[in-house]
């Protein structure tokens, strides 16, 4: 079976706009978590967020697209442009039906939707944008990327909350294996508006701590929930042979294994399906746990979820047997963008042979038995990575990435 490889990355993250700015900040341990400014969160219990800074939409998005997109889709279009540019692919040389788009979404473009619903009830239906017909929609990032780049191949959108970034890439890999040479995948989310905020508060998992360096401490005894951020990553997935044929300038790595599972219904007493997802993804990659050099954790920051994830990791690898990291401590959890950004981070980790740190967690809870990479990056020259993600509602996803010979 043909190998699916990543040939391009586009990153928009709270601690860095653009892949290299993000990677530099991540290795330096620079966090993008801060008090929310996009709207006034004073009336809500959670007031911190990871906002993407310095993004001037007009510099990236043509004026024709401005009225029909919101912040989320503009970030996604910019990240897609960067990823395509990074891949060096000349899209005019590729068949339109040989290029697809599969992205992850959580609530759609809720900022756009909120504004138009406000117009509807405060001013009347005449004031609702005609673009509300699609601009808020879950599939809007996939659709806009597809239209902009004339990618008419198999496309779609996956909604499994935080697991979506991995599920999208797993699905994109299926399309590559079935013969679509190039698929744009990943996820970019931005729901920093009241309509995006309130449902997450209702999950009971958001941190209410107001100090940015104490609010999101996964695997710590002080874990108190997570901070939400915006952004994510777009990846270009290609058939290894066609990437080679067109002379792709670089291959970040192979998407070697993928698996997804569902958690059992609450109250059944059965364990989370996360370990099974990880196990299946490793098997799918033709590896054993000993072949994994680093784990990028889902890192919910909620004690019982941290405990379940630590149990899945130590159950599979043994106690303190594999380095585990959560660079999302610098960005917050990015909903549909989160796992996609972790995949990009893991690929950069393989490229440069260094594991980025988990920040702000000074001492991981000893009971979890994790070898958490804290404080400084670790130069262990990893050649394979396991990325884990869980989405609210019981979704588990795992992806195995492997360095390839360029």
């Amino acid at each position, binding site marked *: 079976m043909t190998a699916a490889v990543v040939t391009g990355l586009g990153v928009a993250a709270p601690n860095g706009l653009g892949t290299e700015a993000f990677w530099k900040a991540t290795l330096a341990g620079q966090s993008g978590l801060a008090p929310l400014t996009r709207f006034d969160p004073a009336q809500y219990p959670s007031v911190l967020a990871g906002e993407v800074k310095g993004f001037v939409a007009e510099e990236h998005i043509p004026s*024709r697209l401005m009225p029909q997109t919101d912040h989320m889709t503009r970030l996604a279009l910019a990240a897609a442009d960067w990823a395509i540019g990074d891949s060096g692919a000349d899209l005019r040389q590729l068949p339109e039906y040989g290029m697809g788009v599969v992205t992850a979404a959580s609530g759609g473009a809720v900022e756009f939707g909120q504004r138009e619903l406000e117009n509807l009830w405060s001013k009347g239906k*005449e004031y609702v*944008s005609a673009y509300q017909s699609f601009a808020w929609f879950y599939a809007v990032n996939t659709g806009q990327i597809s239209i902009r780049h004339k990618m008419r191949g198999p496309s779609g959108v996956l909604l499994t909350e935080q697991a979506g970034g991995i599920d999208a890439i797993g699905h994109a890999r299926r399309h590559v294996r079935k013969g679509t040479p190039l698929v744009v995948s990943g996820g970019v989310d931005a729901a920093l508006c009241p309509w995006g905020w309130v449902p997450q508060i209702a999950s009971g998992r958001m941190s209410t701590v107001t100090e940015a360096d104490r609010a999101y401490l996964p695997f710590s005894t002080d874990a108190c929930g997570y901070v939400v951020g915006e952004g994510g990553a777009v990846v270009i997935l290609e058939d290894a042979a066609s990437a080679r044929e067109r002379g792709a300038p670089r291959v970040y790595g192979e998407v070697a294994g993928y698996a997804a599972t569902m958690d059992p219904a609450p109250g059944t007493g059965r364990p989370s399906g996360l370990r099974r997802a990880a196990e299946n993804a490793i098997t799918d990659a033709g590896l054993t746990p000993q072949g994994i050099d680093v784990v990028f954790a889902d890192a919910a920051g909620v004690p019982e979820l941290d405990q379940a994830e630590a149990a899945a990791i130590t159950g599979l690898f043994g106690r303190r047997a594999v380095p585990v990291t959560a660079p999302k401590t610098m960005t917050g959890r990015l909903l549909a963008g989160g796992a996609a950004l972790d995949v990009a981070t893991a690929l950069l980790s393989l490229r440069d042979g260094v594991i980025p740190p988990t920040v702000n967690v000074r001492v991981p809870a000893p009971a979890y038995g994790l070898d958490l990479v804290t404080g400084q990056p670790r130069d262990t020259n990893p050649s394979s990575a396991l990325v884990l993600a869980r989405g609210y509602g019981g979704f588990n996803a795992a992806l195995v990435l492997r360095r390839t010979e360029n």
Partner: protein
Amino acid sequence: MSATTTVTLTDLTRMLRESAGEEEGVDLDGDVLDVPFDELGYDSLAMLQVIGQIQREYGIRLPDEAIAHADTPHALLTLINTSGEVPQAG
């Protein structure tokens, strides 16, 4: 609400830009009066958005069927300015 009784090409191009942006390579300030909207880069949804803005700004109602046939700025302006519903100055 406009203070004039006539909607001009300048008014229309402003509303096109505000509602649906401007296609790269198209100069709306040029001689566009008789250029079909689709050649100017405005699809049916963009036209729906622009017509919504015209109706809000000028307090008029335009019939859906008529809009479908007004496929150039000239035709649309004629429709607007003969609709008999454009309010008088003041």
